[in-house]
């Protein structure tokens, strides 16, 4: 078997597609004007931004005037939480509802709010990786400023009951934010039908550039600024507009949302082959529900193997993947998502996330399914735990 290069970490980031790069290109070198400038070069930039805003709006069923560009998904998340809290502070709303398995952009922002005197309820997830709308409902209090539940989880890919939660929040009159960074382009989103008040998205998960994001804020909600300065983005987000990246995001989101269902079917078939193939290895388990998950997401715990070395070994074989092990982030704890799912530390340490995209081919899947068992065998052979695991001994 020849060595191939397979990028199977699309949940971490994606390649900028050729269409996107082509769309961006002129804004680097010919249409490089400042979008606030009055001359044609500036007006062209401005027009391109507004066209992109329309595309982003259309992709999620919003109005262009409800979209603001930001520098990333994390900024959008921070802005949603802190802006809403600030806006409602004078009304005595000092409580936040979120879930235990949100992205750190939400969790660490909530922790920062706790330091400022806010109370945060972290609703749990069940063993399939779902937040229950009922739990959210019960968590809402009179002083709840915002409910923030992610649309789809970045590690285990489970898609949450957003419409139900949206309905509950609307009934209770509470602002509902969803981090849809992983969902956009994979799931049909309609902010109006789903009663979403604020939504975060990011370009680099859908083949646009890193460092560009957007936030949808429902008309009527005036989010105080997170960053102050010039009049860009209708006085809401200063900084000379990143025109090429904005144009790229518009292009990318249009492509990503134009044929979701067809793409989903195709990718799901490949993804299921991956899941089924890897689950044939002994002592493995799928993390997150099998069906209600992002089409490209495969997350499997492989006992007796540590995540980082698994990734390095896959890398040597040309496969880019991710793990529930948070080694790279400077922490030794395994992923909070897998722990929230009820996994033991040692199992969580040995998780493998493969996230494929529309570019992934059937041959890529064949290759992955050839390499993973070999690599796992090699690491298990090297592991002092593996025999004990096979014997059913406790390895705590």
């Amino acid at each position, binding site marked *: 078997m020849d060595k191939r290069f397979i990028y199977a970490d699309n949940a971490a980031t994606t390649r900028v597609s050729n269409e996107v790069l082509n769309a961006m290109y002129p804004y680097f070198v010919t249409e490089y004007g400042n979008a606030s400038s009055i001359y044609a070069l500036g007006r062209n930039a401005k027009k391109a931004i507004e066209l992109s805003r329309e595309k982003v709006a259309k992709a999620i069923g919003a109005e262009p005037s409800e979209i603001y560009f930001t520098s990333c998904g994390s900024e959008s998340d921070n802005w949603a939480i802190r802006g809403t809290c600030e806006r409602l502070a004078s009304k005595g709303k000092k409580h936040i509802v979120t879930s235990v398995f949100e992205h750190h952009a939400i969790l660490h922002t909530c922790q920062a709010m706790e330091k400022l005197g806010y109370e945060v309820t972290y609703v749990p997830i069940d063993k399939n990786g779902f937040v229950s709308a009922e739990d959210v409902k019960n968590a809402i209090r009179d002083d709840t400023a915002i409910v923030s539940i992610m649309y789809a989880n970045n590690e285990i890919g489970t898609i949450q009951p957003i419409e139900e939660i949206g309905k509950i929040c609307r009934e209770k009159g509470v602002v509902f934010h969803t981090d849809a960074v992983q969902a956009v382009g994979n799931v049909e989103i309609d902010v109006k039908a789903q009663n979403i008040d604020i939504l975060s998205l990011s370009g680099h998960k859908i083949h646009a550039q890193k460092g560009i994001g957007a936030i949808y804020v429902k008309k009527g909600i005036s989010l105080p600024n997170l960053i102050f300065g010039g009049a860009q983005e209708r006085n809401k987000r200063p900084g000379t507009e990143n025109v090429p990246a904005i144009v790229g995001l518009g292009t990318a989101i249009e492509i990503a949302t134009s044929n979701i269902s067809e793409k989903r079917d195709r990718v799901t078939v490949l993804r299921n082959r991956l899941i089924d193939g890897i689950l044939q290895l002994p002592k493995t388990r799928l993390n997150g529900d099998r069906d209600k998950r992002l089409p490209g997401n495969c997350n499997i715990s492989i006992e*007796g*193997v*540590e*995540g*980082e*070395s698994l990734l*390095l*070994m896959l890398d*040597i074989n040309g496969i880019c993947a991710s793990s529930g*092990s948070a*080694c*790279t982030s*400077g*922490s*030794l704890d*395994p992923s909070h998502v897998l722990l929230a799912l009820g996994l*033991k*530390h*040692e199992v969580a*340490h040995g998780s493998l996330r493969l996230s494929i995209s529309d570019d992934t081919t059937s041959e890529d899947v064949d290759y992955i399914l050839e390499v993973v068992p070999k690599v796992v065998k090699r690491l298990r052979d*090297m*592991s*002092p*735990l*593996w025999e004990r695991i096979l014997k059913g001994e406790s*390895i*705590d």
Partner: protein
Amino acid sequence: MLYSEKVLDHFSNPRNVGEIENADGIGEVGNAKCGDIMKMYIKVDNGIISDVKFKTFGCGAAVATSSMATELIKGKSIDDALKLTNKAVVEALDGLPAVKLHCSVLAEQAIKAALSDYYTKQGIDPLPIIGEIGECEHCH
């Protein structure tokens, strides 16, 4: 977090992986919860570590430090092996990322644990010779 070429080399082609049947000393340190376990097997002939093997469950640095540590003590006297510090392992690997330094500590401890086991099997109290091995402070 970046690994040196040496670390990547010792990870990809670890030296001395395996077990030694009838080893003269076996040491195991770390725990699965924190993500790293090292088990070291040694064979001692006339105060010389004539053979050494390891099995490791852990990250790239854990594997690489195990591999490097075995290389550094193989053929050496017990005295020299006991003098091996985690720092020497790190240096031999051209450095480790700060968050991975504890792996080198584990490697040092694994050697000491194996030697401790060796002395115990010889009916010698290892404590005065080797001292307390302690536990990796990162894991507890």
